[in-house]
């Protein structure tokens, strides 16, 4: 009796998970298949891979600056990620390891920025950019997302588990503050760095509103903008569109799966704290 109940329970759990997995994965499988088919077949509802992949690639390259947009997106995201993890990890370390009453208060004040919607600040930033010539530049793209309270908090919370005695011991041994940070802190915080890098990279890669606002020059446009442009015409080539979606998604997928384990670990530390 109890055993049947147990198996029914297991069955229901698995059915729920299967339905949910299919809901999440089907649209992407469809993208994968559609990117190899011609638009007419996709519209007809074909669900088997076709032979149109190269044609689709050819149409993208002929009509759009795929290479340029890819390069821009890689450049903006990589620079944002590197700058952000340097600035935020150092700050998170500072807020926790050297913490005192005033630094804690300052951090509390910075937390307010989590409540500020980007639409409320983007117009003044845009105006300033127009004046300073930062429109259509990498620097302009990265500036708002380099230092975020979220990433600083991730490092600050995770720094709690970093043993303070070791720092004291190293200081007595004559290690400099900089040496402690680079030789001891950075290597032990790999998971946090992975989590921060994954989130920052994905956000930068997928950013659309900000890119659309400041990247008016065609040569500065990003992959999300390119995909968006493909849907503005009257006739949509679904094969080409889905291949572009696939191309724009692959890098974030790779980054995530490469860093998956540390990502979850880094997140766990932050959530616990």
């Amino acid at each position, binding site marked *: 009796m109890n055993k049947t109940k147990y198996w029914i329970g297991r069955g229901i759990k698995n059915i729920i998970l299967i339905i949910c997995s299919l809901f999440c994965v089907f649209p992407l499988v469809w993208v994968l298949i559609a990117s190899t088919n011609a638009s007419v077949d996709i519209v007809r*509802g074909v669900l088997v891979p076709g032979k149109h992949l190269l044609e689709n690639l050819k149409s993208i390259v002929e009509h759009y600056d795929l290479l340029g947009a890819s390069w821009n997106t890689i450049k903006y995201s990589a620079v944002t990620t590197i700058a952000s993890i340097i600035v935020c990890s150092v700050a998170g370390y500072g807020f926790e390891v050297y913490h005192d009453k005033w630094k804690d208060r300052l951090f509390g004040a910075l937390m307010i920025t989590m409540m500020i919607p980007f639409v*409320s600040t983007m117009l003044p930033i845009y105006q300033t950019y127009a004046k300073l010539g930062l429109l259509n530049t990498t620097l302009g793209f990265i500036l708002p997302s380099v230092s975020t309270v979220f990433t600083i908090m991730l490092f600050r919370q995770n720094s709690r588990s970093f043993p303070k005695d070791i720092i004291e011991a190293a200081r007595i041994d004559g290690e400099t503050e900089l040496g402690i940070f680079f030789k001891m802190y950075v290597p032990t915080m790999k998971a946090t760095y992975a989590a921060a890098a994954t989130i920052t990279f994905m956000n930068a890669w997928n950013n*659309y509103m900000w890119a659309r606002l400041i990247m008016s020059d065609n040569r500065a446009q990003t992959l999300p903008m390119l995909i968006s442009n493909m849907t503005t015409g009257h006739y949509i080539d679904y094969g080409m569109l889905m291949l572009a979606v696939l191309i724009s998604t692959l890098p974030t997928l790779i980054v995530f799966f490469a860093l998956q384990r540390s990502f979850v670990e880094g997140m766990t530390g932050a959530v616990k704290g």
Partner: protein
Amino acid sequence: MIMKISMKKRQNLTGWAVLTPAVILIVVMNFVPLFRAFLMSFQTGRTGKMTFAGITNYTRVLQDSRAADALKITVEYVVVTVPVIIALALIMAVLLNDPRLKLKGIYRTCIFVPAAVSMVASAVIFRSLFAADGFVNSILVGLGILQNGYNFLGHPTSARIILMIVRVWKMLGYQMIFFLAGLQSIDSGIYEAAKIDGATSLQQFFKITVPMLKPTMVFAFVMSINAAIQVYDESVNLTNGGPGNATMPIAHYIYNTAFAGVPNFGYACALSMIILVVVGTITLIQMKVGDRRE
């Protein structure tokens, strides 16, 4: 003694020095523009030609029926998507946290994959699936359920529902990862003890899992609400706000006010101040609620 104090002082200074770049960037990219947006909300016109306008922008907001509609659409969107995402993500995380479950990695990967897809790409995928000549319609017609394709994105109600589905699809796995991380930090001994005391799975869920995940959940609510209130990428790329303005949320409306047609930065800033107040209020309430229960 003197040595010690000077060393303490030096450490303290090092602490401030390493904070400075991050703090300056946050101030320059958040607080300064916010203050300028507040000032601009009392002006009218566009870059270079802004003139003082008193509170006219704010009185105009009150009479703007399109802004009211946009706000209503946004609230509806947030109220539906956020609880659905969090509830589903929590359920999936709890199911996946079962140590006896097989194929865990496959399920987790499947559910998480959409998180790696950009909002723009997500919207474009669903736009293609639900287009009048799209995949869903061709299947429905093929199965004989529909005579002709239904224009899902051309009707206000179905368009709004699909806009919501896009967010649920994309954010479910992302949220689930946070909950999974939280669940893994709960000591499994607590569950063992509860089981010995005869607690059912449902009781374990509400008496152990939910209270233990409270900090994670408060954080998840704050982050998801703030993100959903600013919905823009999806509405631009799924329906471009249409049909009519049936799927134009407030951020989209603000963007259009600032750049499309007759650009009006001052009025857009006044509108954005209203979102700010809404987001701020919700966040504060949630922080209070989160604090009290701990």
